[in-house]
């Protein structure tokens, strides 16, 4: 048991009187401290017994109800304390703490029982912003005496455990429903040069570097032979990611932009691990919102990754090119949105994206054009966008291949994101067929490879439905 402030105040008063008795040499003054000491000790002894009994009779229940424990879901936490009426003699308070990584939204952290109350309960909502196994600490129960002189804290009750899984995005990258494992990664060159991968052994010709001579073969064949190795090259990659409002289609956390971001992040990681030069262009409603110049610096990869992480869908509204994002935001703040005038004008001013380059033509086509002007022609151009505007997409790809680039296109089929449950699988399949036709048309060119990026579970369901009911379509 721990003495409280009230205990210390009483003890201090008694000690002061002892000091007075010593100063005045008056033993009778010790009668006061004797009484105070008797009171403090008496309360302590009886509280010790009462606390033990209370501890045995208290029933603390603590449970966390969550049906689908995945990231960002909300759960209900309920804590209750109960005791028999005969045991309702001491004040009790109960303190609950959430483990790190769990956000408590509106649950009070403390429950209190006055000496006459027998039960109390509180319910609140909590959420799990991250995945992992969370063990909730036992509630801390503080017991005390009715005079406020001593307290005792003990841990009592269950310690619920919740295992939160990552939200299953089950990303599918492939062609015609077939998943591919490596769309972008290691690459070879078609020419010889300095490197470590052996290519061929040929006879020495004047001008060859003496260090290339393969001495074992030379000894065996009695004439000079050199070993050729495959040249190592850096594949310059230009990544263009569309984040216009059309990419916002889909459930929260599973939008087309979220999938595009995943693919883009994977490409950035691969480029970083290969040491390939990487440039990034993000396409907003009115042009290129971010442009990162091609480089192999670690900072470039980090900046590209963080840029992709921060990407959010931007509106297709046309804004005044002479106005900065800060000015637009300030103007929007000044608008009174309760009036019709303010309500109409607000979306035009609330565009907080600062554009690097504003383009009069289609932003995606313009971004491809810019990327090709900025880099050499034999680089790999990676385009991540939606199939919302097939004509513009075809135009962008045509422009890319016209300069001799190899093009890798990742397209999110809108039909697989926009459909809401319950799915009309036949209708969605019709739309998916149209998308597949577009994908094949684009993929026909030898320098173009087009992949679909979609929710794996939904696509699998769609194709399974097609397999079981082929006659319905």
């Amino acid at each position, binding site marked *: 048991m721990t003495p409280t402030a009230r205990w210390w105040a009483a003890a201090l008063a008694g000690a002061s009187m002892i000091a007075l008795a*010593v100063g005045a040499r008056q033993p009778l003054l010790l009668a*006061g401290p004797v*009484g105070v000491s008797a009171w403090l000790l008496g309360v302590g002894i009886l509280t010790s017994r009462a*606390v033990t009994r209370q501890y045995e009779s208290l029933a603390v229940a603590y449970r966390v109800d969550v049906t689908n424990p995945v990231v960002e879901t909300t759960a209900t936490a309920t804590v209750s304390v109960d005791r028999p009426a005969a045991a309702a003699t001491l004040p009790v308070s109960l303190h609950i703490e959430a483990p790190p990584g769990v956000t408590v939204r509106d649950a009070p952290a403390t429950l209190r029982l006055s000496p006459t109350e027998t039960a109390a309960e509180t319910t609140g909502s909590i959420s799990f912003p991250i995945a992992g196994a969370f063990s909730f600490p036992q509630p801390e129960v*503080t017991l005390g005496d009715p005079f406020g002189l001593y307290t005792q804290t003990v841990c009592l009750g269950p310690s619920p455990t919740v295992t939160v899984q990552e939200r299953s995005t089950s990303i599918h990258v492939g062609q015609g429903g077939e998943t591919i494992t490596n769309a972008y990664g290691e690459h070879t060159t078609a020419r010889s040069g300095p490197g470590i991968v052996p290519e061929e052994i040929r006879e020495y010709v004047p001008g060859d570097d003496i260090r290339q001579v393969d001495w074992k073969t030379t000894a065996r064949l009695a004439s000079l032979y050199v070993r050729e190795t495959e040249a190592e090259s850096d594949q310059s990659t230009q990544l263009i990611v569309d984040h216009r409002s059309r990419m916002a289609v889909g459930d929260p956390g599973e939008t087309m932009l979220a999938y595009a971001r995943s693919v883009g992040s994977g490409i950035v990681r691969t480029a970083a691990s290969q040491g390939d030069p990487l440039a990034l262009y993000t396409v907003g409603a009115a042009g290129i919102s971010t442009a990162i110049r091609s480089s192999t610096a670690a900072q470039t990869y980090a900046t590209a990754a963080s840029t992709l992480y921060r990407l959010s869908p931007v509106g297709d509204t046309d804004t005044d090119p002479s106005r900065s994002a800060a000015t637009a935001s300030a103007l929007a703040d000044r608008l009174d949105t309760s009036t019709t005038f303010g309500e109409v004008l607000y979306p035009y001013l609330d565009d907080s994206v600062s554009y690097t380059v504003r383009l009069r033509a289609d932003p995606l086509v313009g971004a491809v054009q810019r990327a090709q002007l900025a880099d050499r022609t034999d680089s790999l151009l990676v385009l991540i966008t939606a199939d919302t505007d097939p004509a513009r997409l075809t135009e962008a790809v045509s422009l890319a291949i016209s300069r001799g680039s190899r093009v890798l296109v990742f397209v999110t089929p809108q039909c697989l994101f926009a459909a809401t449950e319950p799915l009309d699988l036949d209708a969605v399949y019709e739309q998916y067929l149209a998308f597949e036709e577009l994908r094949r048309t684009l993929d026909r060119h030898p320098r173009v490879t087009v992949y679909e990026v979609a929710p794996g579970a939904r696509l699998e369901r769609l194709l399974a439905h097609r397999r079981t009911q082929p006659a319905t379509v």
Partner: protein
Amino acid sequence: MTDRSPPLPVAAAPFISARARDLVSVLGLLIVTATLVATRPQPLNTDVSLSLVAAGVLICIALVVPAVPAYLAGQLALVPLFTGGLSPAFGLAQVGLACLLVEPARAHSQWRLSALTVVIGVGLGAALIAGSSRGVMTLGAVLCLGVGVGVYLTHRFTLVRLDIVSRSPSDTETVTADHEETNP
């Protein structure tokens, strides 16, 4: 136990209240007053008069403040007028003040606490009287030490009963060392 322990729902009475005393406590203070008046030193000179006035003021204060300060105020009121040391009248006044001291226990109908407080008080008082030849400072120090030891023992005893005794690091090391010796 910890600083983050939430406050308990304990009623916090105002420090000064006209209704601070119950009937028994008022009766106890009346006993103290009567004892003071009856045993006042004679003749009634200025010093005695001043002591009586001071005692009156302290008893008035004891009527409106919480039990422990009221009890100490009553003790302060007694001392200047009891120059002759321990006497039956002083004992009677102590009974009146004891009624005041255990007033919170009475309010919660904790008769056992009242009895225990009186028993401990009598015990401590007897111990101090027995050792009165040691001097006031020694007696005061022993009293402080007694309370400290008593409260600490109560604390440890509670931990044992609740089965939450924490093992100190040195104990853990000893146990680990013993375990390693027996199970290499």
